[in-house]
């Protein structure tokens, strides 16, 4: 906050100067007295005020006295003006605050000894501060009694992870406001009025948005508490460690609370970073830590003996690995070993893997993109260029036009979704959502355009053609653009996409305007192999409308350290600059053919790669062609898998090594904008697990090469690689857009999209009980119309068949979807959803039939 205000002063914003407690203060015009006070370290107590919400001035705690004003002023809503003389601690102010506290305590239960908020309760702290030790209220306190649960405490579970106690509520409305303003949710509301007003879940609804965990955190008292943390321990006894979210690519800043006696993580709260998470955490970030505490964690190395994995010591396991790898390389050469590395690992682990493969195995068989299909093998793809562009999360805040292409943000990029909401709320940003099906996160959009699946690049072309048709671009550019597309007119393009040309014109006009632009390309594009066509179409559109000159466009990195993996050279073919740098550091760089995940799997099928290393992740579950990857890994002579848990992938492994979770060692992670952040060690290693980087170094040492002379050397090399800035290159001219269409098999008519559930990400979160409380099993999401045609209702099972697989799962009917596209989350291993997919398809299509019970 303080920095915000200083920044405002620095720029050319008009300022005001006034006096507060005898100090002269200069702040930007429009700054409230409260903000000004905080900027100079004067504490004014508050309840309803929250730095991320619009002020409402209702709790009446933040009184200040302004000379010549007849009444006490409420500082959170009073703007400072020139010459004001403000007193924040006068007797009148203190009397006012005491009165408010007295009012708040009238009906407050004072059950502090059993209240979970004790020790971090703002009401408790302020009562302590103001020394109120007696009540003049000699009537029966107002009591709410819950009709469902524990009546003594009025504890009512209003969501999978939230417990409400209305008696403790002081009606600051922070939760309801945050839910509505910041998250766009209406599942929590205020009912009744006056002193019997109550916060409660909307009738018949659960408070279960992917941001619901923030509500207990912003509650100043113990009215909203989380099931996760409740009654686990007293807050002042917990150890606190600053860390980074290991799931989100924006790298939310978190604080880990630990029970150091039991070596357990107890909860995660926000460590507000205005530039990154803006103080809000997604539930995945908040509850995902539970995987670290899980009793299912792998404790010791396992070695497969006679078809069974048995416990072994590290020495034995390393010995086997070393011998088998040596055997394979002696027999077939070093290109016979391939590595699939998880992009959720920290920088050191990623870099060590890269160095192991490139300097010890002397090949380029390494990739971290294990859930993408049909990755290109050539170095300079347009998609690659698009990935290598700079992007700033905070630039979303003041963007005037935001275009989201191929992403339901609430399933992939929670923080960015909230940023966009903020831009709409505070900056009147216009958002356009372009997707093959109607997504939940389009609720902030001015217009949502739902185009025919598989026409992602055509919709971009259509926008360009619309701008040309409306005369918004100069002739020369228009000519260049039109030459590169096969479609002559807007009408033709919109016909292919199945959208209305009015909607497309709306987007075109917005993008052609002078406003600041952010274009975000999401996972529906990046995971499909239409990505190259989309990237070229986007570059053309950018050239036509000058997008990159007036804003930013980017493919958002998906995992905690995907961006780091790119920067550290984990791509099979690093960029030219990276190769140069690595050559200089290592004195060599392998000239072996680079192999992407797809290529490596193909080589495994041909038995040209016979040794494999899977470091983290669970590729069998996530790779979009289950048969292909399973058969590939099965054909390996020797497979090492390192993970936290047993999984489909570790089952196939000859040696399984227990890996430490992110909380068990210090590691750094690069977020999607390239910012390198450190997660500190919060707990000790579970069992005999070891951090991934240590495992890699041990393997290298066992084979006979030490990767680094010292830890410092490793740190320096990583730092050097990370210092490479994105080159922001664009093609020199308009480029060919090569649309990619494929035949539809009439037997399998319905397009299928594989996404993350809003409460899950990747393969690991199914081990977090709180997250499975929200969604515990897979479902197939479809429009009400399709469900009606299939004669199924919510929860009924259907059979989903593709040319290669068949699964049965319950239906989820989503009102916001209005076309024939079905969505299945990939996060649940019971349902082998990837077995329906074929890696060579751009659009997966299925046949759905009702299962007769």
């Amino acid at each position, binding site marked *: 906050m303080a920095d915000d205000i200083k920044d405002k002063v620095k720029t050319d914003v008009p300022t005001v100067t006034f006096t507060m407690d005898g100090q002269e203060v200069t702040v930007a015009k429009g700054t409230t007295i409260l903000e000004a006070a905080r900027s100079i370290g004067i504490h004014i107590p508050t309840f309803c005020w929250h730095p991320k919400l619009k002020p409402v001035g*209702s709790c*009446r705690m933040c009184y200040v006295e302004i000379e010549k004003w007849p009444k006490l002023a409420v500082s959170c*809503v009073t703007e400072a003006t020139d010459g004001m003389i403000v007193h924040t601690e006068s007797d009148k102010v203190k009397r006012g605050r005491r009165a408010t506290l007295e009012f708040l305590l009238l009906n407050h239960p004072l059950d502090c000894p059993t209240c979970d908020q004790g020790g971090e309760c703002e009401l408790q702290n302020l009562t302590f501060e103001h020394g109120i030790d007696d009540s003049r209220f000699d009537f029966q306190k107002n009591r709410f009694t819950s009709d469902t649960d524990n009546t003594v405490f009025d504890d009512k579970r209003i969501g999978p992870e939230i417990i409400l106690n209305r008696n403790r509520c002081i009606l600051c409305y922070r939760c309801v406001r945050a839910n509505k303003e910041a998250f766009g949710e209406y599942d929590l509301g*205020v009912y009744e*009025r*006056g002193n019997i007003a109550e916060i409660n879940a909307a009738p018949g609804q659960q408070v279960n948005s992917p941001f619901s965990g923030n509500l207990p955190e912003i509650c100043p008292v113990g009215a909203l508490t989380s099931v996760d943390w409740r009654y686990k321990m007293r807050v002042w006894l917990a150890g606190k460690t600053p860390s980074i979210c290991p799931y989100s690519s924006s790298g939310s800043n978190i604080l880990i609370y630990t029970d150091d006696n039991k070596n357990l993580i107890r909860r995660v709260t926000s460590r507000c970073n205005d530039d990154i998470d803006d103080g809000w955490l997604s539930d995945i970030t908040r509850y995902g830590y539970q995987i670290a505490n899980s009793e299912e964690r792998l404790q010791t190395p396992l070695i497969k003996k006679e078809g069974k994995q048995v416990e072994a010591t590290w020495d034995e396991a390393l010995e086997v690995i070393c011998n088998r790898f040596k055997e394979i390389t002696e027999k077939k050469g070093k290109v016979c070993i391939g590595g699939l590395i998880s992009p959720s690992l920290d920088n050191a682990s990623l870099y060590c893997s890269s160095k192991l493969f490139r300097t010890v195995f002397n090949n380029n068989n390494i990739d971290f993109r294990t859930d993408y299909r049909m990755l290109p093998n050539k170095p300079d793809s347009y998609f690659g260029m698009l990935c290598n562009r700079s992007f700033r999360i905070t630039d979303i805040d003041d963007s005037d036009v935001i275009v989201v292409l191929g992403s339901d943000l609430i399933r992939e990029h929670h923080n960015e979704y909230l940023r966009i909401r903020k831009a709409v709320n505070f900056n009147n940003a216009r958002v356009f959502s372009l997707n093959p099906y109607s997504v939940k996160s389009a609720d902030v959009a001015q217009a949502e355009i739902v185009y025919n699946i598989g026409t992602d690049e055509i919709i971009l072309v259509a926008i360009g053609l619309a701008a040309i048709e409306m005369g918004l671009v100069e002739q020369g550019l228009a000519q260049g653009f039109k030459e590169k597309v096969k479609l002559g007119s807007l009408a033709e393009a919109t016909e292919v996409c199945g959208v209305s040309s009015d909607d497309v014109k709306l987007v075109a006009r917005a993008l052609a305007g002078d406003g600041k632009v952010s274009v975000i390309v999401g996972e529906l594009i990046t995971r499909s192999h239409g990505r190259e066509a989309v990237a070229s179409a986007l570059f053309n559109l950018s050239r036509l409308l000058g997008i990159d000159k007036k804003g930013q466009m980017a493919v958002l990195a998906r995992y905690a350290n995907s961006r780091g993996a790119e920067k550290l050279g984990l791509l099979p073919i690093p960029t030219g600059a990276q190769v140069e740098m690595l050559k200089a550091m290592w004195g060599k760089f392998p000239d072996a053919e680079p192999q992407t995940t797809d290529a490596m799997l193909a080589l495994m099928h041909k038995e040209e790669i016979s040794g494999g290393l899977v470091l983290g992740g669970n590729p069998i579950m996530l790779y979009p062609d289950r048969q292909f990857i399973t058969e590939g890994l099965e054909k390996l002579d020797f497979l090492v898998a390192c993970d936290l848990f047993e999984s489909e992938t570790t089952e196939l492994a000859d040696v399984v090594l227990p890996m430490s979770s992110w909380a068990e060692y210090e590691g750094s992670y690069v977020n999607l904008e390239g910012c390198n952040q450190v997660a500190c060690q919060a707990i000790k290693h579970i069992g005999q697990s070891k951090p991934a980087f240590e495992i890699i170094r041990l393997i290298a040492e066992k084979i006979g090469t030490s990767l680094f002379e010292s830890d410092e050397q490793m740190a320096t090399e990583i730092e050097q690689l990370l210092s490479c800035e994105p080159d922001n290159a664009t093609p020199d001219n308009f480029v060919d857009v090569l649309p990619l269409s494929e035949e539809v098999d009439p037997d399998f008519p319905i397009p299928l999209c594989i996404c993350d559930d809003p409460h899950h990400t990747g393969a690991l979160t199914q081990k977090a009980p709180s997250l499975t409380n929200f969604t515990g099993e897979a479902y197939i999401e479809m429009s009400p119309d399709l469900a009606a045609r299939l004669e199924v209702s919510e929860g009924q099972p259907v059979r989903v068949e593709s040319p290669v697989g068949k699964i049965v799962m319950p239906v989820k009917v989503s009102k916001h979807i209005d076309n024939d596209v079905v969505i299945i989350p990939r996060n649940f291993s019971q349902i082998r959803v990837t077995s329906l997919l074929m890696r060579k398809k751009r659009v997966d299509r299925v046949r759905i039939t009702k299962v007769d019970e």
Partner: protein
Amino acid sequence: MFYSPVRTNAAEVAQSNRLHLFRYVEDPEQVKVEKFEEHGGYVAWKKVLAEMEPSQVIEEVKNSGLRGRGGAGFPTGLKWSFVPKDSPKPRYLCCNADESEPGTCKDRVLMERDPHAIIEGMAIASYAIGCHQMFIYIRGEFAHCADCMEKAMKEAYEHGHLGKNIHGSGFDLDMIVHTGGGAYICGEETSLLNSIEGERGMSRIRPPFPAIEGLYSCPTIVNNVESLASVPHIINHGAGWYKSLGTEKSCGSKIFSLSGHVKQPGNYEVELGFSLKKLIYDKDYGGGILGDKKLKGVIPGGSSTPFLTPDMIDIKLDYESLVEGGSMLGSGAVIVFHEDTCIVWVIKRLIRFYRHESCGKCTPCREGTAWLEELINRIEAGRGKPGDVEKVEEICGNILGHTVCPLGDAAVMPILSTLKLWRDEWQYHIDHGKCMVKTDFEFK
């Protein structure tokens, strides 16, 4: 004959060339647009459309000296002139028909019996501020008023007084009749706007004032029913005529809702500056105190205004005189209490209302009114403890001026007023456990 058979002074108004609002309120046909037009209705609206610029209308209303009849008495024309001329946003007009102040029942009569007068006033105001969508927000309990307004609106559309290209002027105007959910607070303008938007009826922080950022964050004017109903008359007879009515600073006529211990309660239109004594005692108006008892006190402007005592009976009913007398004109609801009224009982009844209507936003009002109700109930029932009166006074002080909207102030002002005027009665309840005055009849 009428849904609310309240007594009015329509006969007197019909004879006068100065009073105007109540001229036809006893005519059951007046609700029909034909009759209304026959009585000179929509003439002003046509005149405005044909001959006047919006700025001229604002100027005319400014010059007339018309002040808001809802309670605050803010000059109506001046309020209209606050709408930014250059704003690209649409503007809105909201007629505040959420008449909920205890004792007030004037707007109800107008809506039931002369709804077109309100529509005409709203239309002229909309034209003046450049609004093409106007709302009338009607108190939830007034279902019959909403029916009347709906019918009238339909007729107005049919007769071309509303809709597209009204009377060939090129001016479009639409109207929405919006009913409330039954909350006193929605009579407060920002809560009213929240309510129309579908939000909870809770006040907003001002500034920004509605004229700058109101309904859907667009410039919005909120006017009381009576203020708007006066506008056509100003256009018809001229600002000078209107200014000549009433006193120098309180121009025009005003409807007073007389209730309480009087023989003839009812709605009476009189010029501002009218004598309170005449209103209560004259045979054409109140007709004297029930049972010819002595007067104990009067609330002159709705339940939230401080009391007047019998020695102030000669006070004039206009904005300035009442402020001078320590009270307010408010909405013009004169509530009369005779000598046998227990003042603590009156307050008990009032605080029950305010506790019930507090929206729950600001801590002092939400918690304070409930605490006050408990305390006052106890005192009234004769179970008060020593110190309770002082406690009541202190709690009132902690609420007064400490809330976003005026509900908190409204709740405590009559209490503080009685504590000043009849403290002995309060104290008597504490000391003797019973009431000082003998109440000879029960009223609930």
